[in-house]
């Protein structure tokens, strides 16, 4: 995809773990003393396997370049990079970017369809809970007390209005005693 034809994997994600650690140790960049000053700007002097070469949303500037084992063509490109950058073609700039980073910002920040799965599970459990509650209503709940019938509630409300319950800002303040209706 980037113009490389070699069958040797040059990017770390394709290497097995043992070879990966060998590679890093050979590169010499992984071994940093805890007190070395050159390491601090890059994340505080971490040793493998805690150095990272993958950019993440919360830490988009990785310490290691993505591809550290370069074939001859890529090494020639790296040499060219040491000169003036205006001499690089667009394709070469893209190739250099791909050597340094595994994903672009757009690729790294891409959305996913995970939310659909999550909402599916949520609604499923809502439905299940609704079924449980319905079953309880049919088979378990006792009969309602007599005071919850409409007739009783009407008499109760009339009694509360006669008692002028909460006349300042509550119930009785919303009833018009002259016109015998709720205030508009």
């Amino acid at each position, binding site marked *: 995809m980037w113009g490389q034809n070699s069958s040797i994997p040059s990017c770390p994600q394709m290497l097995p773990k043992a070879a990966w650690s060998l590679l890093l140790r050979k590169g010499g960049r992984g071994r940093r003393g805890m007190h070395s000053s050159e390491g601090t700007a890059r994340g505080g002097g971490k040793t493998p396997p805690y150095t990272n070469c993958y950019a993440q949303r919360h830490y988009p500037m990785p310490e290691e370049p993505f591809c550290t084992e370069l074939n001859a063509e890529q090494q020639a490109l790296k040499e060219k990079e040491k000169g003036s950058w205006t001499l690089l073609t667009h394709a070469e700039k893209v190739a250099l970017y791909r050597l340094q980073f595994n994903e672009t910002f757009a690729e790294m920040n891409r959305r996913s369809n995970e939310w659909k799965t999550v909402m599916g599970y949520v609604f499923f459990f809502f439905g299940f809970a609704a079924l449980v509650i319905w079953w309880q209503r049919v088979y378990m709940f006792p009969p309602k007390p007599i005071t919850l019938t409409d007739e009783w509630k009407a008499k109760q409300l009339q009694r509360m209005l006669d008692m002028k319950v*909460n*006349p300042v800002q509550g119930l009785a303040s919303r009833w018009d005693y002259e016109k015998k209706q709720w205030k508009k």
Partner: protein
Amino acid sequence: MPHPVQLGLQDATSPIMEELIAFHDHAFMIVSLISFLVLYVLSSVLTTKLTNTNITDAQEMETIWTILPAIILILIALPSLRILYLTDEINNPSFTIKSIGHQWYWTYEYTDYGGLIFNSYMLPPLFLNPGDLRLLEVDNRVVLPIEAPVRMMITSQDVLHSWTIPTLGLKTDAIPGRLNQTAFTAMRPGVYYGQCSEICGANHSFMPIVAELIPLKIFEMGPVFTL
């Protein structure tokens, strides 16, 4: 008593309760502002595109978010303490009533001018008249005068109870072996309900308090003092 779908406090019947309602509004506003601020900060932290994981110092911000809550707490504490001391003021009560909690009823003693003592049991649902309030009505109500300072002496005969009437701003524990005092001055006549507010056994929810407040002239006529 509460009305359906009531969200806030019941309307005040005594001046102390008016103070408490005002304080509640004040504290609620402060709490709402803080909550909205936190919600805003949380949402902006979660949706920002800026990511810097190397910040280690934030001295100015830390100073502000230490001093500002202290100031807010003082602003809440000052009105609160004022009301606390208001409730303890000497108000020269004209009348003293004793309220004794039992499992699971109240006993009221009017011993100032006579010797009236009676029990107050909750009316079971079968004994209610149509339109009565379930779990709130009692057989004998506490009859009291309005616009006169009343002193309540509250104690218990067995376990802890609590004598409560929210609209008067009263809640006092009934502790066996101890006399607690509370005082109030009611401003409006009416029937006011409350419920026992300290867990006291199986029928803790079924020992309500009902105060019937009548004009002083009618109270003076003396029907309450006959034995």
